[in-house]
């Protein structure tokens, strides 16, 4: 296997992009990544996208996007793994370059979620849960995570206020990210008093519906000398694991087994320990998700991540800065693009380009991207070269 580096990153402001089509928001982000990397062509590309068929009625996406990017006839493949489609596309691009099959490879992610309206988006997102044995009974994604939240609160004494602290911290970080969909700050009271969606989770515990895209360019590490726009960042670890998509059949409702396994695999491949990680982007689709992910990755003992969050240990400047980008909560969550946007943030931080939210001296970063209620997880570790 060859060593692989990320040499280009691209992303635009996320939000409700009513005047732009899916193909345009992807192409804009991809062109930024191509220009940022200083490459004049790409050899292949992988597109993370959960459900363009349901969201905008368009399948056969990878060919459409390679055409609009002016890169036809390169091989282009769409990758789907619910909300970690982006992370899975990044891993596929990594494997493509590492194997020696291709040199300059684009990993992108895109989702256009607003066009279809709230009911349509709820239906499309729910296809990531078990249709026949969960969704049939009227559960929603906030409902699934609410059940995990209640189980965690009852077992470990996690409080309503501690959950709110996740949203407060991520909006604080997001307020410093010019690309974030909701770059405002909030308070514990603001989170707790927002409308109830699925008890105990309120609207402000939930990540939003977002239109957005992101893209990165990968190449063999021994080719980075040809592309000197920025410090290159090496992909040193990649872990991928799956679990049941039905929440009810899991052994433990307060833990994410696939996240633990993917994290361990990535660390082993990288030859690193958690104490070597300078910052981490995690999949905070709901406030409780960030708490359980931090415990499943091992940054905190089981039942301890909520108190650590309340104590400020996950803020920029704390023990381990989590979601410096604002996370899914503030930056937005165009489901197929999220995993690539996490890589964008980590590379930006390791280059020292994150401005007001820069983690000083960051050398090694981790990104954890998750599908559904935890039925799939990708973990990547990157290090500045």
């Amino acid at each position, binding site marked *: 296997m060859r060593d692989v580096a990320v040499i280009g990153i691209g992303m635009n402001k996320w939000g409700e992009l009513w005047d732009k089509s899916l193909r345009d928001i992807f192409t804009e982000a991809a062109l930024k990544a191509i220009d940022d990397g200083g490459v004049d062509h790409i050899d292949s590309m992988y597109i993370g996208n959960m459900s363009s068929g349901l969201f905008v009625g368009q399948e056969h996406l990878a060919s459409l996007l390679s055409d609009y990017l002016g890169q036809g006839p390169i091989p282009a493949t769409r990758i789907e793994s619910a909300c970690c489609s982006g992370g899975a596309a990044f891993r596929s691009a990594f494997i493509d370059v590492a194997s020696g099959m291709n040199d300059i490879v684009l990993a992108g992610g895109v989702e256009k979620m607003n066009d279809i309206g709230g009911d349509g988006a709820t239906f499309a997102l729910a296809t990531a849960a078990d249709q026949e044995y969960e969704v*049939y009974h009227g559960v929603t994604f906030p409902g699934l995570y609410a059940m995990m939240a209640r189980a965690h609160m009852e077992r470990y004494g996690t409080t309503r206020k501690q959950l709110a602290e996740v949203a407060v911290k991520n909006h604080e970080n997001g307020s410093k990210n010019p690309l974030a969909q909701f770059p405002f700050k909030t308070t514990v009271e603001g989170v707790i008093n927002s409308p109830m969606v699925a008890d105990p989770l309120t609207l402000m515990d939930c990540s939003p519906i977002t239109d957005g895209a992101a893209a990165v360019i990968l190449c063999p590490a021994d080719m980075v000398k040809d592309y000197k726009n920025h410090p290159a960042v090496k992909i040193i670890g990649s872990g991928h694991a799956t679990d049941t998509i039905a929440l009810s059949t899991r052994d433990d409702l307060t833990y994410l087994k696939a996240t633990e396994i993917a994290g361990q695999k990535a660390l082993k491949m990288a030859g690193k320990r958690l104490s070597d990680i300078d910052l981490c982007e995690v999949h905070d689709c709901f406030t409780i998700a960030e708490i359980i992910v931090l415990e499943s990755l091992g940054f905190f003992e089981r039942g301890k991540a909520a108190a650590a969050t309340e104590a400020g240990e996950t803020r920029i400047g704390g023990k381990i800065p989590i979601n410096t980008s604002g996370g899914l909560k503030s930056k937005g969550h165009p489901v197929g693009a999220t995993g690539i946007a996490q890589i964008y943030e980590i590379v930006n931080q390791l280059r020292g380009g994150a401005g007001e939210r820069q983690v000083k001296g960051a050398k090694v970063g981790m990104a954890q991207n998750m599908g559904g209620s935890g039925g799939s997880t990708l973990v990547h570790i990157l290090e500045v070269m």
Partner: protein
Amino acid sequence: MFPARYWREIPQRYRLEANKCKKCGYIGFPPRLVCPKCGGREFEPIKLKSEGKLLTYTIIRVPPSGFKDQTPYAIGIVELDDGAKIMAQLVDVNLEDIKTGDKYHIEFRKVQSDGHSGILAYGYKFVPVR
């Protein structure tokens, strides 16, 4: 909802038909061809127990389409007396009285209706054991 799919799932929704791994006892609901715990492929058909205790729940206040007339409603995961864990709505109970650990039993109810002329979808719901 597609009629063929609804029809195909009737054995589980109406009669709780499951299967049990002959090697390790794992209960598949819906019935499985391969045991996810031990890899066994030999199963015997069983019917799920109809009583169990509530592990966790939520109250849905922003529903998917098809459930708007029922909102707010409770939905939870119950561990049945045979160890199988299944998700369904909690009904015939005041929302503020629901507590984890309480005993529930399964009753056959209407789950959702597909508009005025579509399928009336039935299945199991949890009712408190009093």
